[in-house]
């Protein structure tokens, strides 16, 4: 009898605990009932916060154990849906708290809100109370926020252009800001956009790599070389010590963008350098303008052209030797060296110093000529082998014929 009482007590306690736990998130129980599949209560299960253990009340406040919605709204700490203006501070209450974030995701920075305040978006939101500008949820979404490493996340590199384009590619939405709305399309057609979106090269930049993410802003004229230099370090270094750096600053030219444009950056070609159209040099320089611009451009273009031409000749002779079945491993390696030097020569254009370009091109020319000479020797060797075969084969045949007559004579 005594044992039965203990069993009933334990069972009662378990039932109570289970019912209490079941009531922990009444928000979802009700909201999932009346919301469709795209509603917040359904989306939230895909959200990183929910997956990390945060519940509705951790953001919206209130008592989730209550069953009546009105009771929840009146319960202590309930603050419902934050306004567009409130969102950044609302998110920052956790994300700017280094101690709190360290417990949940130590690798995540906690300066997003500070950066946001310096961004164009933040300045317009807090300065002009413009609630059309992007806040946290505009980019990260609401209720299905994902880690940027996850492919479905709106901030994954492959999705960033689309995320930014929601506003920046919408002419009606952007009308009052007087900025172009072709950036996304231009970017998608650029060498960077194609590398990322067509070749899926995640090392290629997207919007936030140049503009920043939380501190998003146009990279001003002065900092453009630094922005591009993040990846194109050698070109930026060459440019910064070139005579163009000072001239561009004086004339307020946007550094790299002056020649390469900004969003619609195409793969550079050798025709971009020179003293005649379509070279970009002639946009600013003309003969007799008091600079050595066109002379330098012509010399650099000539060096590159000559190196390309000799490289192509060497390549053709090497292909001929390969086609003849000759062993060309050393020559192939040497040609790779030439290709490397050609890349270096093209890069040196950013020094706008013809001597540096000419010297490097000369190094490539010498190596390319060696490849051509060695490949030609291999082709000569190919014909030498055939001549040798004919002579030795003829000798053996004569010997065989002589032997044949000797055998006949024996009979």
């Amino acid at each position, binding site marked *: 009898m005594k044992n039965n009482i203990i069993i009933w007590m334990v069972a009662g306690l378990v039932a109570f605990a289970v019912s209490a736990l079941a009531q922990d998130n009444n928000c979802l129980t009700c909201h999932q009932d009346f919301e469709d599949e795209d509603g917040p209560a359904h989306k939230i299960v895909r959200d990183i916060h929910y997956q990390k253990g945060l519940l509705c009340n951790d953001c919206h406040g209130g008592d989730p154990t209550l069953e009546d919605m009105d009771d929840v709204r009146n319960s202590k700490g309930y603050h419902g849906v934050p306004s567009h203006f409130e969102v950044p501070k609302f998110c920052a209450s956790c994300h700017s708290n280094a101690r709190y974030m360290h417990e949940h995701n130590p690798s995540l920075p906690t300066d997003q809100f500070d950066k946001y305040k310096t961004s164009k978006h933040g300045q317009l939101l807090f300065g002009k109370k413009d609630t059309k500008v992007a806040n946290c949820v505009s980019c990260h979404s609401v209720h299905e926020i994902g880690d940027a490493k996850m492919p479905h996340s709106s901030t994954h590199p492959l999705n960033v252009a689309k995320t930014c384009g929601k506003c920046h590619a919408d002419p009606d939405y952007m009308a009052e800001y007087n900025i172009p709305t072709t950036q996304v399309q231009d970017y998608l057609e650029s060498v960077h956009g194609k590398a990322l979106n067509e070749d899926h090269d995640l090392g290629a930049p997207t919007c936030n790599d140049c503009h920043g993410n939380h501190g998003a802003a146009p990279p001003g004229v002065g900092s453009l070389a630094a922005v591009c230099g993040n990846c194109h370090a050698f070109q930026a270094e060459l440019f910064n010590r070139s005579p163009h750096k000072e001239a561009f600053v004086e004339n307020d030219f946007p550094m790299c963008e002056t020649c390469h444009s900004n969003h619609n950056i195409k793969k550079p070609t050798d025709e971009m350098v020179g003293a005649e159209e379509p070279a970009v040099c002639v946009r600013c320089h003309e003969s007799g303008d008091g600079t050595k611009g066109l002379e330098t451009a012509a010399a650099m273009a000539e060096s590159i052209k000559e190196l390309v031409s000799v490289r192509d000749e060497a390549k053709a002779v090497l292909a001929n030797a390969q086609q003849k*079945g000759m*062993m060309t*491993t*050393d020559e192939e390696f040497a040609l790779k060296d030439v290709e490397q030097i050609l890349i270096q020569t093209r890069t040196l254009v950013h020094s706008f110093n013809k001597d540096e370009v000419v010297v490097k091109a000369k190094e490539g020319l010498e190596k390319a000529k060696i490849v051509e000479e060695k490949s030609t020797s291999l082709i000569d060797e190919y014909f030498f*082998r*055939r001549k*040798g*075969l004919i002579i*030795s*084969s003829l000798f*053996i*045949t004569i*010997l*065989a014929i002589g*032997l*044949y007559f*000797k*055998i006949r004579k*024996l*009979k």
Partner: protein
Amino acid sequence: MSTNNSQNDSFVTRAYQWVNERYKIDALVDYMSHKAVPIHKHSAFYYLGGISLFLFIVQVVTGILLLMYYRPGADSAYESVQFIISTVSFGWLVRAVHSWSANLMILAAFLHMFTVFFTYAYRRPRELTWLSGMGLLGLAMAFGFSGYLLPWNELAYFATRVGTGMAGALPVIGDELLVIMRGGEEVTGATIGRFFGLHVAILPGLFTVLLSVHLIFVQRQGMSEPIEWTEKPESEKKYQKFFPNFLLKDLLVWLIVLNILAVLAVLFPDGIGVMHWPLGVKADPFAPPPAVIRPEWYFMFAFQALKFLPAHILFIEGELFGIIVFSIGGLIWALIPFFDRKSHTGKKPKLVFWFGVLVVVFIIVMTILGYILE
């Protein structure tokens, strides 16, 4: 002019006498001059053994030349072969001739074996000549298998891994045999060392001894006469002198083979078709195996037949079953002179003939399927 000839003759005669006084070669010369070779519609088959011998000599010579530059080892084998082909004067030619003569020797040896088989030339009293020939063919194939790995390129590496893996499938001794062959659990630089030693020292030694025995048997017993001659009267049999007639004809065939070898080596230094040995890329044990791993053409029939077998046959593994069947088949083939009790009486043994046809058809069909299905 005649004075010069007589001077030369006297020099040759004197030299012969000088040697004869010391080594009594008169008997040998007399034996050679009386030796005769039968003439009939299949006389051409007699040259196949000589062709195999000639190609073996070519391999010994080219092999010695290759040995001067080849350096065994995982870090040096591939590079040294590359050096031989690209830098050493006529190195490409030496390697090409070595590879072509190896393949042609196996081909000539196979043809030699089948012509001997279908003309019943193995019959009493030539049982041991046949057996020593079988031993030579086995050694020749071991030469091919061990030589295949030596350039240490991708295809050779993976083919050797498959080949030695088959030895590992043998019961009881399989695991030990695998380690002995590879010099460890895997195909590594240690395997090259072993295969190199086998290829340039052990196999040539064994081959030379067995080849000498084989040639002594052939010289002592002479060429086998056609089985149809058993009932033929002596007056209807035709012969030619071994020396100099047959020997000079043999020499003529060797010259023709040498010419073919030269043409093939110069026009196709990396081989062509199923006889193909491009250096390709260096072996990388960590790289995924190439899409097509295939052995040398003369192992293809066995390789393909083993692939056709299911994972298990009765209570043993399919691969092991195949190896056992091949071993039994090979043993029967080698001992055929002892099973065939009919041919030495002049009657053609039908069972042996159809067994031979079955083996030839099996080898040809499996080889063709091996290349088609890959």
